[in-house]
């Protein structure tokens, strides 16, 4: 029956349902990915951010929360220029991280 309204999906992240396998694979490829402390330096310096809202900080977070689609969509704007590597206070090799993400995660099939 159509009441004109229905259950709305929850925006909450349920950590119990996040499959950690891919992120673990990413961690093996680039162990420093765990070191991110979400300072946002990378986001503020990113030239792609101007066109797309690209933020490797958000990508790292989204992948840990199982939001792969969101992360991959953001990643598609990266120009790999390396400014984020330069500014990262934790010395994360973001370029390798980005390439590893492109290798491990998959784009949603259309």
């Amino acid at each position, binding site marked *: 029956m159509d009441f004109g309204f229905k259950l709305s999906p929850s*925006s*909450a*992240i*349920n*950590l*119990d349902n996040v499959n*950690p396998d891919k992120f673990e694979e990413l*961690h093996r490829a680039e*162990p*420093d990915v*765990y*070191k*991110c*402390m*979400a300072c946002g330096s990378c986001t503020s310096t990113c030239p792609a951010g101007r066109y797309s809202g690209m933020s490797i*900080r*958000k990508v790292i*977070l*989204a992948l*840990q*929360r199982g*939001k792969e689609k969101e992360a991959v969509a953001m990643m598609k704007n990266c120009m790999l220029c390396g400014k984020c590597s330069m500014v990262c206070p*934790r010395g994360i090799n973001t370029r390798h991280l980005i390439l590893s993400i492109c290798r491990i995660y998959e784009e949603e099939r259309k």
Partner: protein
Amino acid sequence: MKENIVIIGGGIAGMETAAQLLDLGYKPIIIEKSDHLGGHVADWNRLFPDMSPAADVVRSLASRVSGANIFLNTEISFINKLKDSYNIMLSNGISIVTRIIVMATGFALFDASKKEEYGYGVYDQVMTNKDLEHWFNTGEDPRINDSAMNAVGFVHCVGSRDEKARNTQCSKVCCITAVKQAIELKQKFPDAMIYCFYMDLRMFGKKYEDFYIGAQRDYGIRFIRGRVSEVSENIDGRVIVKAEDTLSGKPVKATLDLLVLMSGMVCSQDSTKVANMARLPIDTDGFLKSRDNVMDIIESPKEGVFYAGACTGPKTVPETLAEARAAALKVHLFIKGLE
């Protein structure tokens, strides 16, 4: 050398003060309410950031104060102010007249059950930082089941930075303690997923940040910026925590096998009681008030009454020891001034 020096509190602050005074040739009196010396440190297992055994600290201090007059299981019944000295009546019937009191009354751990929403004492799988240290020491706790530790959560700032808990200040050591305990648990349960729910991470001390990086990189501890607001129990007895992942702006939920509450430091009621007897003022944060919070943190506004350690606010072990040494020196100079 006939001056009586009364040190109230036999934790590490009191012991270090006594040890220094013994070295200076005095014979201080330590009054301790419990049946052993060492205070909170005696309950702890290992200390950050080098994982040194807490027992070693207590043991070495205890051997250094063996020459002092130590009253265990003793409380203070009352303190009378005489003309230029104090008459301290102890619960064991002894009375001491002294011109010098060192307040080393320390702190109390915030009672986690006051944060009802975390369910400490209500849910089976919720414990405090102190309970976890007890398990590290003894290996005995019904809440920790070696075969079912898949997910563990740490809640930072329990009773700290919390107006509802009537404690607005930061307890300083819980962040690093949570990181330490998370690492220790991960060492014991390498397959467990360990989350730390934090508001801010305050890694102010020597090597703390390295410790934190190690927890992230080497142990894979997951730090989630967001305070747990609600804990409930599952049908199988596990706890469900809810928080906001403030970095993504989304609510998060996780089912955990164990939840560890990082109880903060508050001024102990006994400390306040003794302070009231000696007519010492209490500062706005609930701890004892110093003459000056910059220059004279270890001196009370009253002549001859000194402070050492966490009775004036949350402190780490090395900070407490440094204050204790400074207090001993102040006592020495005070006595010199009297002569």
